[in-house]
């Protein structure tokens, strides 16, 4: 494990360059360029607001600005998770040429896929911060939770991404399964709604490790409330376990990558 970290540290410039390449080629021939980083979460925010408005209409209440803040805060990290997982899943298949021709620590590819989407996430977060200030969201001491929650999400995404990247190299089905899963995952993740509206079924939703993170971000940023600490702890534990398992499986399978593509 230590040796692995040292090896990775030695090749940090490679991680940087591959991440940089991912970002540059994504926007190089697009007219919108970096605006895509904001547009994608914006679409989810838009959809979320429509859903919220519909809920409010059915319940006979009014849509308030904290609802706007709430759904935006959930949508931006969710957009990151979906995009990063998708890119990481395809990261080895998309770099077959390098996997088969040159040796390097191959976990660089899923890591770079997550990292490049994280840069998009940071760009979108700046836009989000501006939006939150405009709608009059107040800061609070609970904001200190935000980096912790983001770190948990990042850990979970890297763990899942490395696992799926390796799996999809051996079975092309994984790629399609991931697409289907990411499309429907929004129904079991509190992006458009809060887990609290499910009352006693709340627990089932929170078992999804991404749920406590989104819930926590919404609570701390939009509502100036503490996150569901126990569930955040659960999410952190699952994420770290997934990262360790994901990397272990990845390194175990790595010698067979070149011949099993």
């Amino acid at each position, binding site marked *: 494990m230590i040796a692995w970290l040292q090896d990775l540290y030695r*090749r940090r*410039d*490679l991680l*940087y*360059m*591959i991440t*940089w*390449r991912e970002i*540059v*080629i994504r926007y*190089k*021939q697009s007219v919108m360029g970096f605006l895509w980083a904001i547009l994608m979460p914006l679409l989810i925010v838009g959809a979320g607001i429509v859903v919220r408005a519909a809920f409010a209409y059915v319940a006979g209440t009014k849509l308030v600005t904290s609802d706007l803040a709430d759904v935006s805060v959930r949508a931006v990290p969710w957009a990151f998770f979906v995009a990063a997982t998708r890119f990481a899943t395809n990261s080895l298949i998309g770099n077959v*040429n*390098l*996997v*088969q*021709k*040159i*040796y*390097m620590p191959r976990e660089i590819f899923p890591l770079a896929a997550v990292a490049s989407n994280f840069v998009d996430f940071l760009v979108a977060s700046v836009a989000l911060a501006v939006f939150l200030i405009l709608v009059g969201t107040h800061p609070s001491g609970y904001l200190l939770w935000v980096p912790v929650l983001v770190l948990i999400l990042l850990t979970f995404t890297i763990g899942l991404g490395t696992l799926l990247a390796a799996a999809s190299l*051996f*079975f*092309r*089905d994984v790629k399609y399964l991931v697409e289907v899963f990411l499309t429907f995952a929004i129904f079991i993740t509190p992006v458009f709604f809060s887990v609290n509206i499910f009352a006693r079924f709340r627990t089932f939703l929170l078992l999804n490790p991404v749920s406590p993170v989104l819930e926590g971000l919404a609570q701390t940023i939009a509502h100036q409330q503490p996150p569901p600490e126990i569930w955040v702890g659960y999410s952190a534990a699952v994420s770290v376990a997934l990262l360790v398992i994901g990397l272990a499986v990845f390194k175990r399978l790595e*010698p*067979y990558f*070149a*011949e*099993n593509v």
Partner: protein
Amino acid sequence: MAGDSQITLAMRSVSKRFKKGELHDSLRDLIPALTRRLLGRAPKEDRREFWALKDVSFEIPRGQAVGIVGDNGAGKSTILKILSGIMKPTSGEMAVHGRLSALIEVGAGFHPDLTGRENVYLNGAILGMNRAEVRRKFDEIVEFSGLAEFIDTPVKRYSSGMFARLGFAVAAHVDPDVLIVDEVLSVGDYLFQRKCMERMAVVLKGGATVIFVSHNLRAVTDLCSRALLLSHGHLLADGPSTEVLQKYMQAGMEAGTNGNRPVYLSRFALKDRSGDQVRFESGAPARIEVEISARQRVERLSLVLMIYDDNQYQLFSASTERMGAPPFTLDPGQKISYAFDLQMHLAPGTYRVAAALYRYDVQREYGTFQGTSFFVHSKDDIRGAVNLYPKLTTL
């Protein structure tokens, strides 16, 4: 510094098994296969396996240049992939000491949408350089590639030759302890190939170890003092490169005589005054001895001797008939031998001598035999196919 005790590369009884055909590429294939296995039926894959390498052992001391030769599919690339860590051997051990740079495919890792400049940084990082190192060597790399004016053009607009030049330029500046080069000299024009060879010689002089795979046998003898001959995954020969190459060419000869042709070449030798030889000085005398054996009765045959350059262009042809010898008739088991004396007035390069048996009166060919390759060297830098011994006078 360089001594036999300092081994940079070693393989000990390395074998590598591959599966032929499709693997379980989707779950649809895996599930029936797993069910079969669970039901205790033997998996049917065993007969679809083959050994790309079988029990290969060698040690390479620091600072040595070693060529690897063999036919396509002999296992050359597999050895390189195992040494560079891309693949793991099925059994056996290997060791690499020091920073290794493998040029298995030049420009692998280039992204078509990025410019030459961006790709130099990217590829440098892929090959193990850090950004500061690339920045320091950037001008040198660009100069070596000769692509200064196109360096800000996306590489998708490069020709394949330009692509390869930039790729080699980056790789050549990695300063590795071990440089692995796989058939990169087949791309690029003559001048660039020469530049690559010179660069490899510089890397060697700097104390690095070079492993060189090429079908350009002359390049192998020029660069490498030692060669390994592979055939169907087995290490057939390991020794001084001229000896190993001679063996390789003879092996190619024997393969050509197999089969059930009515008549075949039972012996084919390329010699200089001192004996069997594959290296000639430009203009030196050479003798080709051919023995023809018959399995069935053949009548009124002639022997045709041909020399090709490495683009398979025929440079020379002579036949016993055209040289005034009467056609020969052989009964089963009978033999006849000829010797041709030639002067190798060829430009430096790799050439191949082949022979054919032909019956002129009915215009029927009885088989062509791939002979051996040979190299011609000259102190003068002459290019083309022939040596016309130029003398220069300033007027």
